[in-house]
């Protein structure tokens, strides 16, 4: 059993498509928002995979850096989305 760049990219494709599905399928907007971190995770996995298996020149860990930045951006996006949805008043 081994892991290659192609298997990493398959996982990345699956996560990206799953995130798009979550965003499209959920009727509730705050639930649809949770598709965004999953899509970002898919992009991050692809970047880390390229940094691990295919970076021949330049900074080899650039993909890991992008994955870190994507995770932080996902946190900011979810925070903004939940904040914009707003607090529910108690009735």
């Amino acid at each position, binding site marked *: *059993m*081994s*892991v290659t*760049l*192609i*298997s990493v*990219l*398959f*996982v990345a494709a*699956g*996560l*990206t*498509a*799953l*995130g*798009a*599905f*979550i*965003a*499209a*399928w*959920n009727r*509730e907007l*705050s*639930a*649809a928002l*949770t598709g965004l*971190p*999953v899509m970002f*995770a898919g992009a*991050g996995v692809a970047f*880390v995979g390229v940094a*691990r*298996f*295919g970076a*021949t020149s330049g*900074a080899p*860990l*650039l993909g890991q*850096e992008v*994955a*870190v*930045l994507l995770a*932080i*951006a*996902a*946190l*900011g*996006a*979810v*925070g*903004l989305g*939940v*904040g*914009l*949805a*707003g*607090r*529910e*008043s108690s009735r």
Partner: protein
Amino acid sequence: MDSLHAIGFYVSAALAGVGGILLAFLPGHWRRGLALGATGLGVAGIYASLSAGFAAIVVLVCYLGCALLVARPDYRTVESAAGGLWRQVGAVGAALLLLGLAYAAFRGRFAHATFYDGPFNTMTVARLLFAHDALATDAVAGLVLAALVGAAIAWRRERPRDEREGRR
């Protein structure tokens, strides 16, 4: 890559996938938070098995933060105006996206390189973040700051349970 890392990679990928599927179909805030946390754990495991330990820790912290935000019981439920047909069109679009990306991964010709860095790489990633690409780091920090300040300001205002009820 040895067998242990390979098993870790596939188990983590399965965990991330199952978490994502549960995220799509589970109702309720805390259940969705739990599913997002499982997805984050899976993604962190994928990174760790790909020798990206530092990125794994950052992803774990960020996705657990996302999960805690999503699991809050007191944010408002906003329903989309799009009908069932558009949701199904979106789902078909996601399937087409999966097919396209999988085809690109399968047919692509990628260069193979030997990986020389260690399993954690804190120093190298820090050099990239704060020296090589400091502007990108500043941009993401500014983006997150603006997002959190905007979220805090928007959160202060209480809204009725459902917009449609407020309009009646």
